[in-house]
Structures are given as C-alpha cells and as structure tokens.
C-alpha cells in the first residue's frame, strides 16, 4: 500500500514566535506546563506543517488551556472528550495536523475510553499526556496515576487505588508510538514531539510534569538533578541501553525480566547490554521498558515506534476507492435506484 501524507507542508520557515498567541499564560509560576508549552512551540517549526493546518484540541484541566496559548486553530473542549473531537476533525479533513493535549485525569479517568480507542485505531493524531499524578484545577484530588497510598484531598487516609501506567495502557491497546518525556528537559521533549509528529498513526507522548501547588516533587525521585542520571535512562533506537552518571550502567534481559547491571562488575561487558529497538512489533519488551521503575531506571525517550498503516490512510484509501467505483455518482442516482415506478 502506497504511503500517503495528507498534511500540506509550509512554503516558508516558521519560528517559535509565529506560534505564540497574544493571550496571557495563566498557569502558576513554576508549573511544568510552561516548559511543555515551550517545547511544543519549538516543535511546530520543525514539523514544517502549514500553520493554518494545525489544530490543537484539548479537554478540561490546567494543561487543557494550552490551545489558548498557541496561535493556531484550537478547540478547548469538554472533560475527557478531546480524543473524540480530534478524531472527528481529522476524519472531516485529513489535511489537518491534529494535536491532542490532556492531563492524566482527563485522558485516563473520564476520557479513558476515548484514549484506548484512539490508540487502537491508530488514526494520525499526536497525543500529549501531561502527567502530574493529581487533579490540579479542582485543587488536589487523586487521579488514575497517583501513587498508591498517597494522601490527597480525597484520600486523607491514603489512596487504595492501583495506578495506571500510561505506557502500559498504550501497549495494551496495540499503540504504535509511545514516548516519555520530562518537563524539566524541554530540549528532549521537543525532539520527542518532533518524532511523534512525523509518525504516521497515533503517537502518545507522556510528559512527567510537576504541579507545584498540589503535588510538588511527585517526580522528584527520578527528575532531581542529583539523581536523574541514575534513576532515568534515555532510550535511543539502535544504541545500547546505558545510563548512570558514569555511563557505566546498563539494562540486561536475563531471560526472565529486565535488570540493571554495571559494566565491569561480575564479568558484565557492553555485549551483555540490550540494544534498543523501538520498531519491534511485539509489545513485550516495550511493555517491560515502559514499566521500569524502582530498582530500574525510568525509561525516557521513544520507547515504541512501529510502522502500521494508519486509520487515516485506510479511511482515505477506502473513500477514494468507493468514490471511484461507486454505483451512484450523485444523490439523484441513489434516489432513483432499486424498485421505482412512475405514476
């Protein structure tokens, strides 16, 4: 099947400034959303998509205010429904570059159904999940990603809800692109978003984002400068999975599960370290990578990027085929089809 691209390319070069809107950004000072906005504004010029063909769709929550801060077409919709609205917009006009922005509650609680089906269909959408593990705009209730046992406004005795890992959710729905980024490393976030934009199909980028007010430092155990190198690993396709301040730690598959090892200790050499392959169709290893935490470093970067014909292409191919070969060329043909008679 011939690969088709539906979003027209711009004839000019854009800069970040071209996408900045004139609206005052009303997030709390120090909120991780500011950095994600900056990463996104830096991403658009790199996609070379025509500016007027970019559509930002969001749900409800702090992060969902983002369309107002970007000078493109935008739809700030209702809680949980951003994926569904984006799906309709892309189906109506495949020439649009459609970006979906949601928080963790928006995308995985009230909007969970739409998210898994969007991922399953693999329509050409770019989904960003701002994951701060809390409901911020309603002032601090636990969300589907809040850590087990955490005390919040609605869990004064600690949550007894087991949290979702967005990556596992995406792999479970046979997603074709999943990446994880950190709000505090905006350059990497831009690189990841640029790759997400060039993926034909649904891309999901989870950004671990800090909410200063209601869940401060929720990701600090992995994102603090002092520990970041040892507690995270930036995956790169085709490269060994090395991490650590000294670049001497790696991920090894021991036949049963993943483990963190140190090169030079216990006879471990570079050859024992797994090489990242983001294109493996089977979700097994990608699922393990997305799940890494605790003893294992949290995986950052593009974890999965698999080629699979997008729903957008399948839909447009089918439409073209039906319109080229259809029995009826206009509605009059249809009205007069089958059993009719003259009075």
């Amino acid at each position, binding site marked *: 099947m011939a690969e088709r691209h539906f979003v027209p390319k711009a004839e000019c070069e854009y800069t970040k400034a071209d996408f900045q809107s004139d609206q005052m950004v009303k997030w709390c000072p120090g909120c991780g959303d500011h950095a994600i906005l900056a990463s996104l504004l830096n991403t658009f010029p790199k996609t070379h998509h025509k500016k007027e063909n970019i559509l930002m769709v969001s749900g409800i929550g702090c992060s969902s205010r983002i369309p107002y801060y970007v000078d493109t077409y935008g739809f700030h919709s209702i809680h949980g*429904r951003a994926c569904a609205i984006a799906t309709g917009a892309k189906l109506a006009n495949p020439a649009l570059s459609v970006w979906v922005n949601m928080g963790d509650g928006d995308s995985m609680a009230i909007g969970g159904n739409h998210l898994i089906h969007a991922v399953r269909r693999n329509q050409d959408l770019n989904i960003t999940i701002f994951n701060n593990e809390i409901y911020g705009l309603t002032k601090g209730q636990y969300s589907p990603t809040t850590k087990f046992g955490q005390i919040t406004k609605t869990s004064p005795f600690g949550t007894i809800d087991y949290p979702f890992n967005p990556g596992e959710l995406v792999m479970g729905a046979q997603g074709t692109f999943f990446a994880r980024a950190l709000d505090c490393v905006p350059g990497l976030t831009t690189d990841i978003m640029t790759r997400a934009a060039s993926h034909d199909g649904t891309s999901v980028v989870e950004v671990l984002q800090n909410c200063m007010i209601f869940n401060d430092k929720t990701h600090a155990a992995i994102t603090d400068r002092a520990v970041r190198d040892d507690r995270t690993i930036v995956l790169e396709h085709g490269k060994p999975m090395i991490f650590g301040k000294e670049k001497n730690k790696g991920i090894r598959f021991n036949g049963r599960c993943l483990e963190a090892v140190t090169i030079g200790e216990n006879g471990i050499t570079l050859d024992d370290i797994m090489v990242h392959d983001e294109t493996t169709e089977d979700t097994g290893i990608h699922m393990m990578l997305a799940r890494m935490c605790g003893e294992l470093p949290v995986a950052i970067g593009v974890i999965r990027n698999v080629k699979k014909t997008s729903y957008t292409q399948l839909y447009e191919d089918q439409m073209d085929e039906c319109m080229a070969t259809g029995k009826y060329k206009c509605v009059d043909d249809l009205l007069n089809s089958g*059993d009719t008679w003259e009075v």
Partner: protein
Amino acid sequence: MTDNIIKKNDIVVRFAGDSGDGMQLSGTLFSDASALTGNDIATFPDYPAEIRAPHNTIAGVSGYQVHVGNHIYSSGDKCDILVAMNPASFKSNLKWAKKGATVIVDIDTFTEEAMTKAGYTSDPFTDELERAYAIVKAPITSFTANIGTEQGAEKKTYEKCRNMFALGIIFYMTHKKLDQTNAYLERKFAKKPDVIKLNEAVLSAGYEYADKLEVIHSHIYEVSHAEMPKGRYRNITGNVATAWGLLAASERSGRRLFLGSYPITPATEVMVELSKHKGLGARVFQAEDEIAGICSAIGASYAGALACTSTSGPGLSLKSEALGLAVMTELPLVVVDVQRGGPSTGLPTKTEQSDLNQALYGRNGEAPLVVVAASSSANCFYWAYNAAKLALEHMTPVILLTDGYLGNGSQLFRIPKVADLPSITPRLATPNDPDYRPFRRDPETFAREWALPGMEGLSHRVGGLEKCPDGPLSTDPENHALMTYNRQEKVNRVANYIPDQEVTGNPDGDLLVVGWGGTAGALTLAVEEMNNEGKKVAYTHFNYICPLPKNTGDILRKYKKIVVCELNNGQFAGYLRTQFPECPMKQYNKVMGLPFEVGELKDCFTKILGE
C-alpha cells in the same frame, strides 16, 4: 377467481409469527408488491427487542402490519387479514384483528406443547371464536415440508420457507400476482438456484391452496388504486429517508457529510444506510460510545463538515454535555433522535414521543437550540434536509425528532430532484479577512461565521468556556448576559425563516386538534373521518417545535376547545402552555409503546365535542 370480490378503499394485513419466521420479510414483500401495483402503503413493524426469544413463546412474537389502498396515512388500527404462524402469535395478535377478519393460522404448529407454551389451557378454537372470525386452518408446515422433501432440500432450509406459503395465500386473497416476489427471490438468491426454486414453489403452493378453499373465496379483496400526484415513486423507511435527506443536504451545501454514531435501536439503520454510501462521500464513523459519536461530529463540524450524529433516547441523554458544547461553540450539528419508549432502556423496539423535554431542555445552563420533528416515514427525508439547512445557515445544533414508528415503518416516497430542493448556503468566513472575529454575527440571523482550520489568517480558539464576541475568554458578568441573549436570540430568529403554521380539517371547527411529529397519520385520518361524519374539527400539526411558527399563538387563541395529542404524558402540551398560558388545552396521551389508533382518537374528540 369468479367470486364476489370485495372492493375496498383499503385493507390492513398483519403478519405475525415467531422471531425468525420471516414475518418482517413477508410484510415487506407484500407492501412492495402492493406499491408496485398502484396502491398507497404504510407499514409498521412490531418486533421484540430480543433477536430470537425462546421458540413459541409470546415474548418471541414478531409482527409486521401493512396498510394498502388509496390515501393511506398510517399503518392502520386493526387488520382485515391476520396471519399467525404459531399459537403464541395467534394468542398475542388476535386483539389486532377486526371482528369478522380472516385469520390464517399454521394449524400444524398447534401442538399440545406449543399451545401450553403460549399459555393456552384449552383448545383456542372455540365456537365463539369461529363465529367471530373466518379462521383458515392451513397446514402450512406440512405442505412446505412436502415440497421441500420432493425437491431434496434439507429440513433447516425448507423450514425457513413457511412464510412464503402464507404470503402466497395473502397474494391470492388480495388479487395480486406473484411476479414481483419471484423477481425479488431471483435477485436475492441469485447464487442459489435451488433456494429460488424452493421458495417459488412454496409461494405458488400457498396461492393454489387458497384457490381451493371455499372460505377464502368469500374473502377476496380488491383494493383501490391510489390517486397520487404524478411522479416517480418508491417505497422508503423513515430511517433510510433520514439518511438520504442528509446526503442530499451535503450535496446541495457542498459540505462533506460526516456521521459519528453508535449503534442503538431503533436508530441504527440511519448509520447502517449511510455506511453504504462512502461512494457518495459519506464519512461515517462508528464511535466507541454515544459521547464519542457526538464529539467526533462536533470535531468534524469545527473542521467544516455537515456533521451529524444519530441516536435514540438513552443516547441523547449521554450526548447532553456535548450538545451544550455545540451550543456554546455555535457550530452546525444535526442530531437525529429516533425516539423509543423510555425512560432508561425502556422499550427499545417500541415507539414513543417522550424525548421532547429532553430535546428542548436537557442541558446545563441556558442552552437553546433548534428542534424539528418529522411526521411521516417519507418526510423524514425533507426534515433531515431541513435540519441540515437550518444548522448550516444559522450556525446552531438542530435536533431532529423522529421515532421508532416512522423510522422502521415505510411509506411511498415521491422522488424529488436534488436540484429542486431549497438551496443551502453555509455561513463560511473569508480567508484572510482582517476583521474576522469568532463571534461576529449576521445582523439578521445572529449567526456567527464558520472559519475552518486550513483557512489562512483566521486561526482562532473555540471551546466550552464563555467567550467575548472577539473570541478570547471572558467571565465578565455583562458579557455573559450578552452572549446568553445572543445565543437565544439566534434560535428565536429562526422563526423568521420558517413558514406559518397551517390549519387543516375544518378550520372553523369547534375543536382544534393539535399534534406534532410522528402521529400525523392517525390524527389526519381521525380528523378527516370526523368531518366526513358531520362534526366540525380543525387540526394543526407541528414540525417546527423550537422555535414555533410565529402564528402559533394566533391559531391557538381562535379555538375554545383545544386538545393536544401525543405519545407521552403531555410534554408538548406543557411546552405550549408555558408560551400561551391564556389558551386552555386538554390532553390526549398514550404511553404504551404503540402508535395512536384512529378509533381511540375519534372517541376522545367526540367526547370533548359533547362536553
């Protein structure tokens, strides 16, 4: 046929049997054949929600009523001929037969076991019953089995043909030829010549069986041909007509058609029909749920499509929040609600008009939108078209109310030319218009302009939060009051673009009958019969529900006696009373999941006239 043929203006035939006995097909084939031979028709499928309820039980009975003749407004009250394929269908459907009706039963199915299952404790064919009806005890199962065995067919194949035997009898009784149905069989089973041969043989056997029966010879009907305006005609169900109306509106407006829907009885057929027409550009999306259905349509509308979603009552409930979003963003959207019995899951396969309040009021905040209702299976086409026109020209969501009776029922449809339909001019913005503002309004209609992603120089943001006319967010109290007024005024002003409400029957009558939506058939006939009988009854039927036609008050104020008839507990009556409190109104209501019968309406009108 040398008998005394009974000439009639119209007759009603009801096919009843177990689900799976092919009653819907028999009914359709009979109505198609009647339409093609010059009769006017209306049909009414009456089927259970279960696909195959336990065999031979009352729960599993499926029925299909066909009304044929001249000037057919509805599917008729009671039938002249009843076909009952088993004891359960006989027991549950005899109440729909007129006194003296011909009742054809498959006598082979009246075994002890089946009769017990149907709830009979003694022989159903009492002397009293035999005096009240002309009962034909036809051995349909054994006749069909003999033909099947002769042709070497398997039991499970020939058992499915019993309905053809019954249909053969009906064709004989109604003086019709078999050609039409044979042609259908040849089309349907083109790749299975054995099946064609078997079905045709069983159909002829039924016909010949009837020819030999004395009782049938005194019950042969010749039904008047319909006097209809010249034109090309076809048979159409309301749901298909709705789908085609949307296609026509898309073609005429030049906007791509998008339908985002989720399967729900009795609306599914709208999506099923449009799914066939990708060739005509219909972009159909089967969503993961009702909410995604409407939300995808709202997204498609923002992107420039003629966007629609189809559903029934429970689905409309799920769409409420998103409908509010469509009101707030002032995007064109057509929501088709094929109403069924409620609340909750209610009576999925039965008809009702009880979603009116939900359509008018079922949203948070001040959220006005346009509500229209179709009043016949065939005019679902025009009302779907009209709903799309209003949505696109006035930049508003429009709810089109049809119902299970209209949606599943069928009628003759005079085929229009798309070019003859009223034009549709969407309110598109002009690219690079330096003065474009998201909520700049047309001074006459108050409709805003539609700027589509992809248009240069018009990028803007919409959403559920209140905005000011220039586009940005606003929580300013005066602005909210202004925007609320503007949204309401836009819907009110639709009244300037719709025709006056008409009064039919005897406009100088002593009583005004008021109806809306899918009850027009029975109401028209009831009023016509009353006037023919010398009573004076005026009648007005509403299709524009919100806003109402501007002369509505003038009409209502002319009559001392008004009765509002609807298949709910008085929702339209309540709506009219809030707007015209000076007009006293009586109500006639029915919530049985069934359409009105002409008889009950006439009783009601007679009683009111006598008060």
